[in-house]
């Protein structure tokens, strides 16, 4: 394989070459190196969206426009992309349609969040579903952008107004040229910018990754850096060796068969969202509420597992669905049930030099029912206080088997063995007989108290969610049981 010693991305039709430093964020590159100050820093932790820029890439042969948070994205992760910022949209004094709509609808007050919103909406302007937008779809799209001034109504109005035109802005007109320019950057080379002591590397193949990681087992792997970015901006950790998985061919594949879906570790959370939704609308709903579009565009399925967080949202869902994890070190691979990967708080079954290769998720069988619920202080872009996932195998109206996993209830994503056992044989038609099984959750989990919820609240919610799941699986429509995430609406659309 050829080796490239720098990072390359497009800015306004020109190729930028960067060879370090490895921890440089894209936002700092823009503001401190380019002195392009239109893009703002509101939090430096991925939560406010003020730093949103759009990466234009070729993906599956199509041009895509992906809003990302430049504050926690490393400049190296822009490799191969066209980086578009708020300064780039207008043509002379003619504003871009999303900018004009924001002006016309009074979508800015203090204006500090505005560049981020404009860029998110610019992504929406180029999204495939722009033609059939409603307020909910816009809300989902901008869940990662905070505005403290406007109350959002005018911004949503601006989105709907702007996306009502033909979509043929100056960028759409240049898409072919951009595709050619980006193709020229797509060189299949293993990228290694820096020295053996300090580098940003982006291997292009699984083999190259495996070799590099064996040589540098002390390196930090990054998928989307939506966790690691905060180690840099908030904890000010020194991460001299960084290996980015975003260029590794075959690590971003999705194999969707009748029985199961296999996600490569580097599959973005946004790409996985549709496939998980196809398994069950609740899994799709969880992914809709997972972080924000900007975070999901960067963050990976592998990263959400490998970080071992007790409050990660995908692990409980994948565990309840019966997922299997594949790990690789050098040429050797091994598989294990996902729940076994999580040994204890901060401890996973991953050896030095070993990386997450993929995760395989079985689809539901006709007699299986699935429910999952995310409970958090705020519906959108919040970390779960409790994440509950239930897979129930039915035998008529009775529960033949159950797999239950919770997040936020223990030091790891964890199954509820005692409750699962107690549920076997339960009659869904007899709610008065459920209490004993539901109470078993208290022996499965002794949650902690923290700023997201007290121990007592978490336990109470866990019991409430199991009851809710049983009521719903027993046949109650979710309009009667939920305030968000109505399944019937998801099925209808």
């Amino acid at each position, binding site marked *: 394989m050829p080796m490239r010693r720098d990072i390359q991305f497009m800015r306004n039709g020109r190729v930028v070459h960067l060879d370090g430093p490895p921890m440089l964020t894209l936002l700092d590159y823009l503001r401190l190196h380019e*002195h392009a*100050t*239109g*893009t*703002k820093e*509101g*939090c*430096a*932790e991925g*939560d*406010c969206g003020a730093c949103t820029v759009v990466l234009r890439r070729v993906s599956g042969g199509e041009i895509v426009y992906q809003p990302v948070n430049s504050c926690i994205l490393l400049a190296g992760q822009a490799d191969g992309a066209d980086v578009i*910022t*708020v*300064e780039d949209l207008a043509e002379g004094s003619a*504003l871009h349609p999303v*900018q*004009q709509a924001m*002006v016309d609808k*009074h979508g800015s*007050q*203090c*204006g*500090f969040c*505005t560049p981020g919103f404009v860029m998110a909406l610019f992504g929406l302007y180029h999204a495939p579903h722009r033609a059939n937008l409603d307020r*909910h779809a*816009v*809300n*989902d799209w901008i*869940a990662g*952008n*905070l*505005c*403290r*001034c*406007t*109350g*959002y*109504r*005018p911004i949503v109005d601006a989105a709907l107004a702007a996306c009502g035109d033909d979509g043929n802005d100056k960028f759409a007109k240049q898409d072919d040229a951009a595709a050619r320019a980006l193709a020229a950057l797509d060189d299949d080379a293993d990228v290694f910018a820096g020295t053996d002591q300090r580098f940003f590397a982006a291997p292009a193949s699984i083999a190259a990754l495996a070799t590099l990681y064996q040589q540098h087992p002390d390196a930090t792997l990054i998928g989307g850096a939506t966790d690691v970015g905060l180690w840099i901006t*908030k904890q*000010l950790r020194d991460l001299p060796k960084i290996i980015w998985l975003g260029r590794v061919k075959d690590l971003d594949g999705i194999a969707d068969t009748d029985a199961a879906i296999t996600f490569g570790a580097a599959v973005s959370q946004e790409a996985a969202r549709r496939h998980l939704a196809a398994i069950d609308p609740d899994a799709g709903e969880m992914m809709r509420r997972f972080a924000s579009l900007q975070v999901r565009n960067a963050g990976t399925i592998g990263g959400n597992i490998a970080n071992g967080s007790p409050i990660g949202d995908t692990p409980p869902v994948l565990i309840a669905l019966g997922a299997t994890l594949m790990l690789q070190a050098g040429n050797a691979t091994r598989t294990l049930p996902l729940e076994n990967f999580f040994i204890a708080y901060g401890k996973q079954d991953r050896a030095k030099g070993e990386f997450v290769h993929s995760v395989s998720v079985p689809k539901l069988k006709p007699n299986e029912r699935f429910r999952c619920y995310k*409970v*958090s*202080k*705020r*519906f*959108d872009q*919040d970390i779960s*206080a409790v994440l509950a996932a239930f897979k129930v195998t039915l035998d008529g109206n009775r529960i033949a088997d159950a797999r239950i996993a919770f997040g936020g209830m223990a030091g790891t994503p964890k199954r509820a063995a005692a409750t699962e056992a107690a549920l076997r044989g339960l009659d869904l038609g007899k709610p008065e007989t459920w209490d004993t099984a539901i109470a078993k959750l208290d022996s499965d989990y002794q949650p902690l108290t923290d*700023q997201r*919820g007290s121990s007592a*609240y978490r336990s*109470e*919610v866990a019991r*409430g969610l199991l*009851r*809710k799941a049983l009521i719903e699986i027993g046949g109650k429509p979710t309009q*009667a049981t939920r*305030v*968000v995430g109505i399944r019937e609406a998801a099925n209808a659309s």
Partner: protein
Amino acid sequence: MPPEVVDVPLRIVRTSRRHDSATRHVSGSATYIDDMPEPHGTLHLAPGGAPVARGKIKSVDLDAVRAAPGVVRVLTAADIPGTNDVSPVVGDDPALADGEVQFHGQVVFAVVAETREAARRAVKLAKIEIDAETPLVTVDEALSADLNILPEYRFTTGEVGAALAASPHRLDGTLRIGGQEHFYLEGQVALAVPGEDEMLVYSSTQHPSELQALVAHMLKLPQAAVTVEVRRMGGAFGGKESQAAQWGALAALAARLTGRACKMRLDRDDDMIMTGKRHDFRADYQLGFDGEGRLNGYDVLLSSRCGYSADLSQGINDRAMFHADNAYYLPAANILSKRMKTHTVSNTAFRGFGGPQGMMAIERAMDDIAWTLGLDPLDVRIRNLYGDGRDMTPYGMRVTDNISPELIAGLERSSDYRARRKAIAAFNADSPIIKRGIALTPVKFGISFTNTFLNQGGALVHVYKDGTVHLNHGGTEMGQGLFVKIAQVVAEEFGIDLEHVKITATTTAKVPNTSPTAASSGTDINGMAAQSAARIIKDRLTDFAASFYNVPREQVAFRENKVFYGNHSVAFSELILRAHVGQVSLSSTGFYKTPDLTWDQAKAHGRPFYYFSYGAACSEVMIDTLTGEMKVERIDILHDVGKSLNPAIDIGQIEGGFVQGMGWLTAEELVYDAKGRLLTHAPSTYKIPTSSDVPADFRVALFDGANREATIYRSKAVGEPPLMLAISVFCAVADAIHSLAPGRRVPLDAPATPESILRAVKAVAQH
């Protein structure tokens, strides 16, 4: 009401105009302080915070910090040539802690380095040893220790003891109300540029004049040698009224000591830890009322967490008392305020300035009465409104502009309140898990600084030879649209297009000794001052035109970019040129002070407010009784801004204020641990509303009516009052919970997080 005198039809004011910076906002070319080109050699500061909440400083070892790469200097209290204070009033806020620390994160030292990153990294190398003492963290802890930061204060009217005793119904209760982080999107930032003997500070501040004075004291400079400038802030909401000062002062200190430009921009987490918030309150109340639900007596103790220093807590707690009545007549009342000292960051101004917390208590009282008597809470509210013969506030000001009854009736109709209440009852009867609730609540908010002398504004207007106008005034722009509104006033005065009025940055060098842009007063006072400046120039121009064209003065009129005289007209710019040649001064200051205010703080009596702004909101919510999750379904608002100067801007303030208030009362929760550490110091754990929290069904209308007082074009202040409309959301949540056990009182505390809601659900269900 005196008739409104308007001699010409209005063209510019009372029309919707865009924010003057809208095009820049969307293009990324609106310059905030961190976006300004840095002077060559600019250094960067990072703060070093106390590792514990309370104790004597034993030692501060900064050797490793000084030796760190890029570090130029480290600042401690000993480096301050003048006064080590950044407080607005009392003198108890050291810029750098000296001898003791009083809250976790209090700034002990600051690193000055070649880059911001180097400064932040170096901070981590400090070794601070503190003789830690147990901090008082909560209002309750401070109450038990009886630790006050300011003396208590009381309003009394009537004989409350007797009124309570004589009432057929009596209740007492306690409501806890959480604080709120401002979460302005642009964090605290300042850039200080040293001059020969001068200091120029660009600061994201609502109060440039105060920072100017503090920097002068700190650096031992005359105030005339210090200039503070701000073009715009990326949000402020009160959080940059007094608490922007520390960062500007530290940057200025560093600039003075290094001779180089110095910038201090706080990291978001530092900002949330090191700057104050809305005060959390505990309200303990006793009610006496009749069978119709009318209050006879209201006895309330409002205790607040002020934090470690006084900051603006006096005015804030006073305002909680001024709004303890909200829109309701209290025949007998005892309103007592305790200002508790805690070892937490000093709480500060935040949109509403204590008013919202005072209102929350009386709104809970209204619900309590309704629940106890089995009445519709709206009927209880309507029966208690100010009215004829029931118009005296507990602080001796008569309510003469009361439009609440009419406004509420209008909203009751337009929101279809009664039919929806019935529909909700029917829904709830059939829905064991999901419960709906509705509430319609009023707002009456007093406009003026209650510290009367602050009610003054200044402006400076120049007309240049090409007929363009340079506008400057004492108000600061934080997104509220102040600048465009005042430009509208000036354009209207000169009869020219808005584009010909150049809005310029607020600076202490052009308009001196200004009041903070706060108390919703920005347009009222600065608009009047700017109008006055423009009128002075216009008067001179009128005189000039009358004599130059030989027409009577009355025949000179300014409109459509022209000046009309007799049957002729001349372009405005041409007249200006002629006037200049005719040696007419084309520049003027303008000044305004609010008339008729008579507040006597010692007697707790008088007229603190020029007028009241009114509004009402009706909110409908649904809750999940298994998890406590809540969704707002519909909001209807009818709000009084007098004759709006700019309806689009005002509606933006109403909607934005409402959503911010909704956040305060629902998801925004400040969690401190027992050691006084704020655990929710980042947007990952502190959740302000997102777009999906705002219901699609959001109906906002302006109440049609003029201000009775002679404010600028009969408009009313709009910055703060709409925030309190969101109390309707909180009350609607309580209403939904109440449906589980009608007749029981709902012990819901604010914020109504899912956990708080579920706790209240369990409490009413288990009785």
